[in-house]
């Protein structure tokens, strides 16, 4: 089963939930934890495992053979990302704008364009007990997260339980990360900000037809409107984690909740069983 952990709003506790869920399951099952928050991957801080493999994520960008090139300008015309400009006797390539679609090289009448890889990030893997860990890391200054997320998700092994940590928001990196999940956990906090962003995340799940449930973190702050919303929408609240200075302190030190407070282990195992039931029933 693939379970993604998303939120809409940032900083609501996705990493806390993803790491504790993976650890709780790993007692009895083979688990994968995939950190798809490739702009700010933080799961590794909580897992204390050694990364033993790293692969580059490359985007194919055009390389012009100026001997063959006739400066006809077809490539620049074809490129909707404005990554190529053709001057009288020179072709300029702007690799950071290139999406790697290959239109320029495909359409060049002189076959003067080949492609070379440009690194935009890495995918790193490591292992600890029953957990196989995979994380993506977008290179600093690079704008596009989806190619890295796609490469992280190529590692998904259907023989294991896969937990996917999703970036905040509701736009393309989130879609890429949650796509093909069997279930999505939406972690929120009971404040107007949390609720506003939760409702957008719920709309996204509806659009993608992914079943979801809510985890309320920092329960006790804010107001009761989030619970009311979930009730109205018919979305189950699967877990509540209270606002607690000790939990905040554990998180600040990079200690997983179920390790710092082992009593929570049961709750995460039950959470998984709950999800399994929901997914089987549908």
């Amino acid at each position, binding site marked *: 089963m693939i379970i993604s952990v998303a939120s809409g709003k940032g*900083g609501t506790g996705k990493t806390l939930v993803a790491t504790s869920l993976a650890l709780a399951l790993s007692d009895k099952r083979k688990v994968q934890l995939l950190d798809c928050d490739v702009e700010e991957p*933080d799961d590794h801080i909580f897992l204390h495992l050694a990364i033993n493999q790293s692969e580059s994520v490359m985007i194919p960008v055009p390389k012009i053979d100026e001997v063959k090139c006739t400066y006809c300008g077809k490539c620049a015309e074809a490129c909707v*990302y404005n990554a190529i400009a053709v001057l009288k006797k020179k072709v300029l390539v702007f690799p950071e704008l290139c999406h790697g679609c290959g239109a320029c090289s495909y359409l060049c009448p002189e076959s003067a364009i080949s492609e070379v890889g440009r690194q935009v990030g890495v995918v790193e893997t490591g292992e600890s007990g029953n957990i196989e860990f995979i994380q993506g890391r977008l290179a600093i200054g690079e704008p596009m997260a989806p190619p890295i997320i796609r490469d992280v998700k190529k590692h998904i092994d259907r023989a294991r339980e896969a937990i996917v940590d999703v970036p905040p928001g*509701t736009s393309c990196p989130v879609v890429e990360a949650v796509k093909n999940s069997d279930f999505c956990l939406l972690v929120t906090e009971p404040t107007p*900000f949390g609720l506003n962003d939760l409702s957008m995340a719920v709309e996204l799940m509806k659009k993608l037809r992914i079943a979801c449930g809510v985890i309320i973190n920092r329960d006790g702050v804010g107001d009761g409107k989030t619970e009311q919303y979930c009730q109205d929408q018919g979305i189950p609240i699967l877990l509540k984690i209270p606002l607690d200075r000790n939990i905040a*302190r554990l998180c600040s030190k*990079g200690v997983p909740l179920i390790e710092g407070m082992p009593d929570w282990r049961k709750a995460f195992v039950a959470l998984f069983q709950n999800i399994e039931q929901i997914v089987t029933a549908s």
Partner: protein
Amino acid sequence: MKELVVLSGKGGTGKTSLTASFASLAKNKILVDCDVDAADLHLLLKPQIKEENEFWGGQVAFIDRGKCTECGLCQEVCRFEAIKDYVVDKISCEGCGLCSQICPVDAIAMRVPMAGHWFISETEYGTLIHAKLGIAEENSGKLVTLIRDNARRVAEKEKLDYIINDGPPGIGCPVIASLAGANLALLVIEPTLSGIHDFERIIGVCRHFSVPIMVCINKYDVNEENSCHIEDYCHRNDIEVAARIPFDNAVTEAIVQGLPVVEYSDNEVTQQVKKLWQVVSVKLNDQEGRDANL
């Protein structure tokens, strides 16, 4: 006219609460919510929409099944695996247009969908420019650039002193669009190991785009050891730590009341935020400071 962007790397560190307080403290300014796919600033500033505009995103392919002969060429050339069984998955399509250019029977058209809305609004704190990107849409960076351009236009016309941008989390496309060309990035950091890790990455992005940085440690007393670590790091890297704001439930209470925290209570948080705006506005007006930083 000076432009400030509030960023953090990690989400949920307090960017929007801080921006709303600056809205209350700063004079002669315009506000921009650059977090277009999870916008929250409007919940505190309560805008009255004066102008609603459509946002047209990037183009996507559309296959006319009446013309299509199912030759398979489009599926073969698409690098984004966006065409399956001669139907385009709009979410995967990156709009490169190669399929439409090579289709032998001209069955593929590129269409530009409406991807959201953006608004010019009045609030009791001045003009707010904000947006709502459609669910699951792309091009958030393009939308951020569009609303920032409009904020500059308004600011120039009305001779405003400040543009205050509430930025998105992360380091990718909408962050880069929020940051480019700003006079100062205020980084809101929380003293957690995740916060510190993400902080180092957002600093890298600010430096990459040559935007000067100032730091505010939020909820510094949640882990004072980590806060010291952040201060040491900033000291070693010549980055000014302009404020240390303590944890206080009043910040959340203010959000529930729909108010900037500086208008909700007169506690230590408010004192620190007022002091922070002082330091930030001085820094924004200190052009030599900017040059020295570059």
